[in-house]
């Protein structure tokens, strides 16, 4: 299951932070996917606000993620390896990336 998820992830879901495009909330970062066109899975959205509830800016910036928009490459591969978002999103600190949680990040 996880292996299949990873394969799909490696092939298709290379994403690049594309800057602060308009989202539902101030600080929502909609990622631009650098992958094949015509994918049904929407690109990921990072909600700054939800994360600020639990962490101050300094927790991630600039250690884990540079502030500059577009400078962080986020891949599903890296997340599965416990890097990038996977530093916390590992099922212990925060929900992990599985087929059950795709839509928590990949949403319109």
């Amino acid at each position, binding site marked *: 299951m996880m292996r299949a998820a990873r394969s799909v992830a490696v092939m298709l879901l290379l994403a690049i932070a594309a800057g602060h495009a308009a989202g539902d909330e101030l600080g929502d970062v909609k990622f631009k996917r650098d992958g094949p066109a015509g994918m049904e899975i929407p690109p990921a959205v990072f909600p700054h606000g939800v994360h600020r*509830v639990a962490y101050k800016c300094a927790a991630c910036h600039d250690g884990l993620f540079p502030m500059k928009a577009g400078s962080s490459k986020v891949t599903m591969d890296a997340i599965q390896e416990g890097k990038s978002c996977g530093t916390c999103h590992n099922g212990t600190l925060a929900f992990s990336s599985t087929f059950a949680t795709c839509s928590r990040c990949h949403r319109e």
Partner: protein
Amino acid sequence: MFAALVLASLAGALLLAACGPPPSLLEPLFPDASDPANATKAYAGSPRRTPPRKEIEETVAAAPPPPARPDTPAIYATLPRNDDGQVMWMQALDEKLIAPKPGLADDAKDDDPIDMDVELVPKGQPEYKVVFSHKVHTSWLVCDACHAGLFEMEKGKTVITMDKINAGASCGTCHGKVAAPEPMACPACHKAMGA
């Protein structure tokens, strides 16, 4: 001839007598199933299938439940907002509605906010005076988030204009993208305008 036959018979009889009755010799190899003592004997060889290992089930059942995590989306939905619909983060922090951690590590230590206001007065336009609160900003950020990449430490060295901010530079690097002016609009920064 007769004598030889007698001798052979005698030898055979003696041999049989010496060996005892054949059943006693072969008994260990062919236990008499009709003997009730043998019928109740359990098979002592190695079993073909290993019995199910109960301890595995017990280990799974005894695993501790995952630690409860704060439902951050639910908490976020309850935070106070200004008339523009933006979250009032400083109010949330001051009223302890949230307790954001300063680092990812469990033992991450937080530095005290730096209580230092910087007044920025445009030349000849005191009504547009800005009061920049280090305390507010260092409640969230560390010094090197802004110094000296975005803003020089030396006062007056970095020129700040609304054009730059509106173009997403200077204060606009964060404000307008991830941070809202609080409480809202011009007086949030231009304190003189709200007086």
